[in-house]
């Protein structure tokens, strides 16, 4: 994305050219390439893509949670005025859980089964020097009630296994909120939950965000979640951001052929009909081992032409205020293709 920090309020998080490389026995795997984005205060930024596209590992890099075989570098990775990539563990632990916190997919594995939820909630607060145990308890009760857990002070003595999955995820959300973070990274926060619980959990996140002025990075594979919660979205494919736009615009004018394919694959998209084929994206994601040349999507792309494999790197093209896509084709012809798929006249 082009630098646009001048026009907007200062971003809470600014990432430029984040590269994560995994050293594997068969060669270096480029998990992310040139990932750049800005997160503004109070906005929800969704990163959407399929497994292996690098959406999670890019955020793990920010949190300093990469596996040992991974190496991350970036031109800039500034959170709240501070460069966070390559900070020592000690300095990072002052930020993590404090101003920058995270919600993981599976609430059972992100809670410690041998401690009560009260212990786990208060620990963060006391550890970051926000107050004593009594104040921590008070804050924990306030937040548990806020996330809709009844009888909160009694629930503090419960162990994670005594709670249902949806309840546990709300405890995890409350825990992420304990130190009033500025940014929460939510990695597939509702994927492990039942559908009826998923919707309420997302609505809760939206409410908390408004109430406390949080910024959220929402990592998901589900475009339904993206549509219902996010302000802006980046679509990732094979380690690169291939399209970024305000959410409404992405769904109205999906420009990159991958985004178009992804939207058309959703079973609830369009008119459901048991007799018609579901739209698919043929083929599969290319191997990311070794240096890539050309467009990573070209083998699955309905609009690919010879140049797509020739160029060294496809650059992001700007179209409109805050909309960019990584494709050699001009915007008009891509939009015409999208409309043509729906039988609309162009």
């Amino acid at each position, binding site marked *: 994305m082009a630098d646009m920090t001048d026009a907007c309020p200062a971003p809470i998080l600014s990432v430029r050219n984040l590269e994560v490389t995994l050293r594997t026995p068969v060669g270096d795997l480029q998990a992310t390439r040139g990932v750049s984005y800005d997160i503004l205060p109070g906005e929800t930024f969704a990163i959407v893509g*399929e*497994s292996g596209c690098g959406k999670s590992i890019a955020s793990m890099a920010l949190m300093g949670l990469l596996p040992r075989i991974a190496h991350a570098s970036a031109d800039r990775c500034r959170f709240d005025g501070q460069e966070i990539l390559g900070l020592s563990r000690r300095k990072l632990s002052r930020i993590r859980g404090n101003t920058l916190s995270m919600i993981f997919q599976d609430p059972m594995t992100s809670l410690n089964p041998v401690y009560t939820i009260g212990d786990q909630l208060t620990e963060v607060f006391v550890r970051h020097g926000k107050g004593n145990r009594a104040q921590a308890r008070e804050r924990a009760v306030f937040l548990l009630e806020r996330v*809709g*857990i*009844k009888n909160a002070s009694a629930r503090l003595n419960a162990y994670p296994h005594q709670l*249902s*999955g*949806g*309840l546990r995820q709300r405890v995890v959300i409350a825990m992420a909120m304990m130190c009033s973070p500025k940014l929460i990274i939510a990695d597939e926060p509702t994927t492990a939950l*039942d*559908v*009826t619980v*998923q*919707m*309420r959990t*997302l*609505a*809760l996140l*939206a*409410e908390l965000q408004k109430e406390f002025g949080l910024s959220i990075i929402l990592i998901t*594979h*589900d*475009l*339904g*979640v*993206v*549509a*219902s*919660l996010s302000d802006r979205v980046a679509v990732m494919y094979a380690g690169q951001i291939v399209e970024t736009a305000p*959410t*409404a615009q*992405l*769904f*109205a004018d999906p420009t990159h052929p991958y985004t178009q*394919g*992804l*939207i058309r*694959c*959703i*079973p*609830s*998209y369009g008119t*459901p*009909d*048991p007799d018609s*084929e*579901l*739209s*698919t*994206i*043929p083929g*599969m*994601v290319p191997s990311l081992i070794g240096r890539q040349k050309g467009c990573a999507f070209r083998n699955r792309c309905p609009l690919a032409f010879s140049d797509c494999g020739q160029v060294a790197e496809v650059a992001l093209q700007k179209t409109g205020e805050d909309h960019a896509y990584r494709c050699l084709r001009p915007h008009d012809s891509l939009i015409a293709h999208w409309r043509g798929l729906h039988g609309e006249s162009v």
Partner: protein
Amino acid sequence: MFDSTAEPALRLCDVEVSFPVRRGFFSAAGKLHAVNKVSLDVARGEFISIVGESGCGKSTLAKVLLGLQPVTSGTIQINGKNLADYSRKELAYQVQPIFQDPYSSLNPRKSVAANIALPLILSEKLTAREIRKRVHEIMEMVSLPIRFEHSYPSQMSGGQRQRVAIARALITRPRILVCDEPTSALDVSVQAQILNLLRDLSRRLNLTSIFISHDLSVVRHLTRRVAVMYLGRVVELGDSEEIFNNPRHPYTQLLIRSILPPDPTYRLPPVTWDGGGPDPTNPPPGCHFNPRCPYATDLCRTALPALIKAGDAHVACHAWHDIDAWRAAGGKTPQLS
């Protein structure tokens, strides 16, 4: 497409599965009714979905159909013969499974061809050459390139592994396919490929398919008949068009409203909490859904509703008629919690 007057391929009659559970060491053993009095006929060649959330008993039902879980009471007939009268081998020729996670359902130490051929080797006296031919046929059928035959599951993507699992399920030429969440571990673009494949295969081979899922949008796209389960019981059963356009059971209505559309103008409803679903070991008296139901009356709190005909579908709800009339008069569905 299929003949509904003929003998059903699969007939479940009052099937019940319960497990003893103990809350604490000294407390008396309770009972968890995972599947509770489920009756269902599935016609030959039909593609039917069973939907519900975790703990509703849909996977236990799948295990029952595969002969992996004995029933506590009730009968199951497959092609007119009691399931209990089939031997394990005979059953393997009638019913085959496709599981959710192709990473754990394939043997990682066997090649793709060996994985696919496994059911044959166990139950048929075929020469190696014949087996190889059958494997190649089936790989072609599921669009798996033959060059993968000596690969191992770990070298393949999730979608390819699920194709291997489908090939393995079809190699005994079964009549019934039980698919338990076959695409929930896959990416959306791959999910669509596998769903299309499953539907094409069931048509081409005239398979009777039971598709178990929690994802209503997938179900709507795939099948013509849907059974909705809640806490071990079927609460609504009917044509998918009817169920999606005119859901009668309040739980079905809640499920359908929980589908997140890929539409940025959609607004999430305000949050309401009900303290979680009911405890399956101690379900509420009357209709199991009554604590979460905005229409619940005293009757719902005392008497269990039976699955009865309601319009073009079957529904287990005391109040469906009032709800239907009230919605027809333009009533807005209240916020369900």
